[in-house]
């Protein structure tokens, strides 16, 4: 799923400065699962903002709403019904959801309440870690199911570099060396010989480097 984190409340307050009412819009997709932008967090953020305004001697009216998904127009109707009465929307969805709202509701600003971080997993309760950078050309079959692009701090394809020590990455003793993980996994699988050949130079055009990406399934189009 897509992992996001709350923006600092000060930053959000500066963003909504000048508005006396606002829609706080959550999303029931990824940001709900990672406890950043679901119904519960919408409630918490809205009351925190109202409280902060109160301490400034000002008021803020908040309208809380949580859409099924902000990345799909199919679920935009509940927002469409109320949006004309408000001067701005504060969205707790990922960057894709925020942008999609902004594209479809063009009269008022759609503001980000979260920072979208990465595609990751719930490693344990309250801990999410990155697994994929959506490079568009998966090599997991060659690396024991561990991604060198997202797990190695330098995205090396022929690691580990000289900074791998005791399984940790040189950038931080808390960060695991992606290539140590790959090595250990390939050893477990009895496939170490696969790491003997240099990995070819990567075609990054399937990644962000090729420009904004698009996928079309003609058979699904109406």
């Amino acid at each position, binding site marked *: 799923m897509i992992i996001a984190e709350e923006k600092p409340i000060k930053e959000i307050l500066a963003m909504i400065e000048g508005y006396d009412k606002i829609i706080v819009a959550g999303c029931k997709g990824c940001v709900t699962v990672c406890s950043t932008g679901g119904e519960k967090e919408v409630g918490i953020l809205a009351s925190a903002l109202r409280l902060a305004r109160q301490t400034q001697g000002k008021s803020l009216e908040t309208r809380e709403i949580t859409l099924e998904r902000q990345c799909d127009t199919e679920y935009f109707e509940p927002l469409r019904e109320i949006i004309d009465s408000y001067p701005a929307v504060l969205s707790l969805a990922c960057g894709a959801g925020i942008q999609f709202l902004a594209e479809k509701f063009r009269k008022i600003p759609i503001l980000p309440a979260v920072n979208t971080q990465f595609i990751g997993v719930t490693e344990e309760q309250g801990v999410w870690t990155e697994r994929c950078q959506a490079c568009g050309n998966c090599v997991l079959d060659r690396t024991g199911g561990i991604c060198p692009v997202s797990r190695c701090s330098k995205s090396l394809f022929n690691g580990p570099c000289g900074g791998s020590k005791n*399984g940790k990455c040189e950038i931080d003793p808390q960060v695991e*060396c992606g290539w140590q993980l790959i090595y250990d996994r390939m050893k477990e699988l009895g496939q170490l010989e696969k790491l003997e050949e240099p990995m070819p*130079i990567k075609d990054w055009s399937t990644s962000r480097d090729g420009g904004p990406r698009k996928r079309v399934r003609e058979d699904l189009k109406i």
Partner: protein
Amino acid sequence: MKSGSRLEKLLAGGHFVVTGELGPPKGADVAVVEKKANLLKGNVDSINVTDNQTAIVRMSSIAVSALLIRMGLEPNMQMVCRDRNRIAMQSDIFGAYALGIRNILCLSGDHQKFGNHPTAKNVFDLDSIQLIQTVKKMRDEHKVLGGDEIEGAPQMFIGAAANPFADPFEYRVVRLAKKAKAGVDFIQTQCIYDMDKFERFMKMVRDRGLHEKIYMLAGVTPLKSVGMAKYMKEKVAGMEVPDEIIERMRKAGKEKAREEGLNICVEQIQRLRQIPGVHGIHLMAIEWEDAVHGIVERAGLLPRPEIN
């Protein structure tokens, strides 16, 4: 001859080579380069010029390499994958060759987190092994990566690094073999303090026959103090300093620490010369260039051989 560089000629001629290292200034002051270079002159066969090492912005390795050539010295230009994509690197390789640079050391590069611009975006379009492949393709196939023909191929002597002390230990020689497959001509290792471990590494190198395919230069760095020894052991990733070395530095006391550091360095070089498959040393006297002459002389490696 692949490049005809002094370094290549000496290695091909069977000489035990000595390479040095010069860290460019954090600015445009040529005098800093000249001062360090003069201390290395006559004591080493080729001088590594670091490329923004530890991700600290310095004078470019191409420019400093060109300055060394002007002074009559031979550079070994380091190039890291952190800061440039394949377009910029190939362009710089053309330019470097045009300026007379004949040796290139292909490195991944320290992560920018360690430097003075930790908020920078890194590149790593290629990694060090892929950079070796790139330079080899340019040199031997006269083509850039995209496949276009080159007008004047850069005939570079291709080097890379190896760190026998990083983990996983048993994979280190495999990674070295990958560099050989990619087309590397010579290797310079990380600073060695744990000689026993290095000997184990070299045995693995010989078992794979790599010492007959590539030239191995063993890295040495004289210790200045017990503090430096401890720092390297504890803080520098991929560096091992045995307790006995730290103990020797401690026993020497503050006043004689540098002298003991030099003693250890000379002893190491003498032992390294005995290891089959070691073709030379890479002496990195970091900000201690005036120690180089004494070390090389005491190790019995002066005068450096003349070549045509």
